[in-house]
């Protein structure tokens, strides 16, 4: 996904003089060529994430379309007040593209991981959130985001599904009983975990805005399971709001709040949080038994 981001963003910068890229050292080497071609629009501010956001806001105030990029914890968590005040409060937008996700950087430790990025943006107004599950979904997201001035967050991960499902909204992939919604890269583990269960499986790579109409129409029974690759329960409030008036039971799976003070790989962390196929199956079966 990161390679697709670099190639697509480079092409966008070459094609559209309104676009700009602001970096804080992370991935800067991958944009050397395009920076030489467009030194006024490809800017590396150094290890200064607050400034990265401020510069993005300033560029947008002059009518440009800034893309910002870093690891999720540095892009979102660290510069939260800049994101709050330098974009929406100024009535401008930007495209924020993160890598690292919840625990891609497992061996780097907790400092390089963000599980709360989507929840933090949920405290703010007007952010579209893309959590693509496949590299082929990334290019269209970025190209679409370059064409307007809204606020867009794109959360990239090294965890990828085997197939792409492009387009916003809820994609129902398998018909059955209770609804299991997989967000982004959680689709493949969900499909494996539910292979022989009588459930409906739906996918979205765009959890914000949540496809409320799609969610309501995909409900087959009064039961819903939501599996997200970031903080557990991040979408619970929206699912509850969407299904208000419909008697239902819900289970929200995602990354737990407690810090896992272990390194290893993202597979180890998925297992620790019960987000590997076996863990998901245990949780979903227990829920469906009531």
């Amino acid at each position, binding site marked *: 996904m990161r390679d697709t981001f670099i190639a697509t963003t480079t092409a966008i910068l070459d094609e559209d003089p309104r676009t700009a890229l602001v970096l804080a050292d992370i991935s800067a080497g991958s944009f050397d060529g395009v920076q030489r071609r467009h030194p006024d629009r490809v800017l590396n501010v150094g290890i200064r994430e607050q400034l990265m956001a401020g510069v993005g806001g300033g560029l947008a105030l002059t*009518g440009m379309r800034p893309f910002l990029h870093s690891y999720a914890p540095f892009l979102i968590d660290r510069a939260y007040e800049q994101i709050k005040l330098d974009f929406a409060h100024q009535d401008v937008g930007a495209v924020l593209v993160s890598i690292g996700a919840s625990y891609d950087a497992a061996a780097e430790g907790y400092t390089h991981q963000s599980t709360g990025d989507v929840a933090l943006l949920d405290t703010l107004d007007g952010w579209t959130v893309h959590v693509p599950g496949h590299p082929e979904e990334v290019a269209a997201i970025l190209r679409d985001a370059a064409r307007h001035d809204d606020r867009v967050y794109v959360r990239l991960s090294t965890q990828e599904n085997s197939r792409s499902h492009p387009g916003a909204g809820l994609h129902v992939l398998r018909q059955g009983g209770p609804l299991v919604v997989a967000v982004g890269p959680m689709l493949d583990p969900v499909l494996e975990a539910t292979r022989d269960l009588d459930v409906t499986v739906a996918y979205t790579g765009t959890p914000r805005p949540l496809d409320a109409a799609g969610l309501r129409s995909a409900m087959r029974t009064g039961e819903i399971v939501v599996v997200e690759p970031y903080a557990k329960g991040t979408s619970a409030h929206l699912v509850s709001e969407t299904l208000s008036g419909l008697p239902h039971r819900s289970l929200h799976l995602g990354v737990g709040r407690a810090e896992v003070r272990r390194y290893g790989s993202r597979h180890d962390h998925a297992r620790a949080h019960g987000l590997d196929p076996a863990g998901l199956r245990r949780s979903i079966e227990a829920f469906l038994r009531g």
Partner: protein
Amino acid sequence: MKLLSRVTADVKHSPSAHSTLDVLWVLYDRVLRITPETADDPGRDRFLLSKGHGPAAYYAVLAAKGFFPEEWLDDMGGWDSPLGHHPDRVLIPGVEIGTGSLGHGLGLAVGTALGLRAQGYLDTRTFVLLGDAELDEGSNHEAIAYAAAIRLPLTAIVIDNRSSTHGWPGGIPARFPNWGVSVVNGRDRDEIERSLRIVEDRPRLVVAAL
């Protein structure tokens, strides 16, 4: 200034409101290429008030220059008023950024200057006004170092009324390495004007001492 007293009658931050008056008047009366008619012109000069608290003088100057009706000054902070105790660019014609939380204006000014340069507005100037205590916010130092490194020609004005709790060894210019510096009497309008007219191929700091 009559308009200023119209707005400051019962407003908080009154000393900080008055501290900016002479600099703001010189900017809008003598330096900035901006009028109510060109307030949305993409090539207009930009003035960003980073020190958003104590905006009474800012509002008074904008009203005197016709950006909005003087009557607006009578109800600052009221439910029906566009004028808050910190300015909001969405509500007030001529206001470039909404501020209040300190340490945001300089970064936004760097981005603004870069955006103008990238679009070919090479004669458009970008000014940003900060307070000396505001410099204690670390975000400013991210912007100060970067602007110097890329020799970005914007002008930061720091109103120095020695309100920073711990100060800074060497004074305010020591916080701005590799910037061009003028230290002026913040009440001397001619001296302020001369310092604001200087353009270099690097960022400039004007300390308006009070």
